[in-house]
């Protein structure tokens, strides 16, 4: 058994980006199969156009339509591409100075091997048939002399002011060793806290570092699955990813024997009847659904005992 519990997690969102006028002009150009540079205050032409002039710091407002050919000024061979790159098999990234521009542009060059690319090589754009107004609308290929013969045109393409950029990253998440013992306990239907060797408080879940003392919690304490609602809110609002139909209660439950409350759901009672101090008991999912997760506990439900006195839990608010 590994020291810690681990699981994959994907962090993914399709970001909506408003481009502003300069990047918008550049991306609109790409949609039209045209490379647009920006003229800087010192007379140079930069591709892509910077939003603000590096010298005068003013917004760049003068644009220059350039040919879709250029020269490789540096390159590298991507022997092991990662997800999202312009090619799934090995390819080249290059710094390409577009004809008429003074600064290089980072882009991909589609060649079969590193022997097919060199500094000083002439390249031209190979445009996608369907263009959205993004840097992925083209890749560069060696210029065979028939420049732009097959270059598409779409001069009246709609202006680009907004792009969607998907960002999806895969991570392997690990719990700390202390948390891992807690989650493994749950898989056996046990709630395992740990006591801090210094302040003697019982933490559930246990901690890699007691937040008061900065030392790991250590001494294992098996806790009851009965506790007291310290405070709560009634969720009436629907939101992204919600699993239960509102209204319902999200509460802090202080398990008997613990010194810190857990956040969990209170069900089997109308939301308006939930009270601070109410005594509740864990309702476990059927055993065959258990995993190494706090979600083995479906929710908490009232025990029917009298409410706890405010003084017994007020220091947990």
């Amino acid at each position: 058994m590994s020291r810690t519990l681990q699981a994959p997690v994907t962090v993914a969102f399709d970001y909506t980006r408003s481009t502003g006028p300069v990047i918008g002009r550049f991306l609109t150009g790409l949609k039209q199969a045209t490379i647009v540079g920006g003229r800087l205050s010192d007379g140079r032409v930069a591709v892509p156009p910077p939003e603000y002039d590096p010298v005068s710091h003013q917004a760049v407002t003068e644009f220059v339509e350039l040919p879709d050919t250029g020269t490789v000024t540096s390159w590298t061979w991507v022997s092991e591409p990662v997800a999202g790159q312009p090619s799934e098999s090995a390819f080249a990234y290059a710094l390409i100075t577009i004809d008429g521009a003074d600064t290089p542009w980072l882009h991909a060059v589609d060649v079969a091997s590193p022997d097919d690319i060199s500094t000083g090589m002439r390249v031209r754009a190979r445009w996608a048939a369907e263009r959205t107004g993004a840097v992925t609308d083209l890749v560069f290929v060696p210029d065979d002399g028939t420049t732009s013969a097959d270059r598409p045109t779409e001069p009246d393409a709609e202006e680009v002011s907004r792009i969607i950029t998907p960002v999806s990253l895969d991570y392997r998440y690990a719990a700390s060793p202390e948390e891992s013992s807690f989650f493994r306990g749950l898989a056996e239907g046990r709630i395992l806290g740990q006591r801090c060797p210094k302040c003697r408080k019982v933490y559930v879940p246990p901690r890699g570092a007691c937040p008061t003392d900065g030392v790991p919690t250590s001494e294992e304490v098996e806790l009851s699955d009965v506790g007291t609602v310290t405070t709560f809110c009634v969720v009436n609002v629907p939101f992204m990813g919600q699993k239960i139909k509102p209204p319902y209660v999200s509460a802090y439950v202080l398990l008997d024997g613990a010194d810190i409350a857990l956040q969990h759901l209170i069900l089997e009672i109308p939301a308006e009847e939930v009270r601070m101090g109410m005594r509740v008991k864990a309702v476990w999912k059927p055993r065959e659904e258990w995993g190494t997760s706090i979600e083995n506990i479906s929710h908490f439900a009232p025990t029917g005992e009298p409410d706890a006195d405010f003084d017994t839990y007020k220091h947990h608010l």
Partner: protein
Amino acid sequence: MRDVAVVGFAQRQMKDFDGSPSMAELLVPILGECYEQTGWQKKDIGFWCSGSSDYLAGRSFSFVSAIDAIGVLPPVNESHVEMDAAWALYEAWLKIQTGEVDTALVFGFGKASAGVLRRTLALQLDPYTMTPLWPDTVCLAALQARLGLDAGLWDENALAEVVNRSLTDAEKNEYAVRAGGSSVEELLARPMFADPLRKHDCAPVTDGAAAIVLAAGDRAREANQRPAWISGIAHSSDGLHLGTRDLTTSGSAERAAAAVGGTDGVQIAELHAPFSHQELVLRSALGLGEDVRLNPSGGALAANPMFSAGAIRIGEAAKKIWDGTADKVLGHATSGPALQQNLVCVMEGR
């Protein structure tokens, strides 16, 4: 300016940390070592500052539970930068300079192995015109390396010599995740990874954390018999866009070195060069002559824990003052693609 010194330093570096991305459990023994070195406790520290990244951890506010490692009740005077801990050290140095505090402990941490590091770092680029192509950091460095090769500023042998020296030195560093020198010929016989760079030209993906203790005047002398007095610390930034700067040199490193009054007399320098050719760029930009001993720790080519590797360079350099090996040393940190930001910290023994 107040006299401020590096008086404590502890680190952990490894290929694959199996614990949580907040790394609190890894920071606990590191802070413990700092207390042991200085004879201090938590209450002796006036200011805390850390460096880390949410994207490295894969979640927002990844730094908030890291401070549990301090034990933060009663509450502490604390800050955080989304940068290498070398810049956290800079913020702490400022705080001491304001006179508000006399001591500070800074730390950095990062679990790069949780994701695909070179892909994650594509998110550092221009989100409109670069990131959609997902250019990874290794490729950007490779483009930089070729510019220097083409211009005749360095050659393959020079890169291999940097690697060979680093990996040979790394044999004596218990925290190195890559070590073992061979020969220039043997290194050059290995396959390309991101032509013109081979794998050994690129820092290994490393998990790790580190902490440094700073103190002013008498507090420094109380904690360390031979404190590493900071005689100059400064940093500067270049633009990110590759077309707007000369990648074969480093303007920001030059400016940082100028801001600390130059590097004359530096005997040992720990440079944060995650790629072999970048050591050559930095050596020249920082004005470090051939007589300056570089990266006796093995440097970033031996271990490069994101968000603490820069601070580790400062800590490694300070150790050479503490043990009397040198009287004047330099620690350097970098951040961003292709050496975009650079920080220089010159320390002296007195």
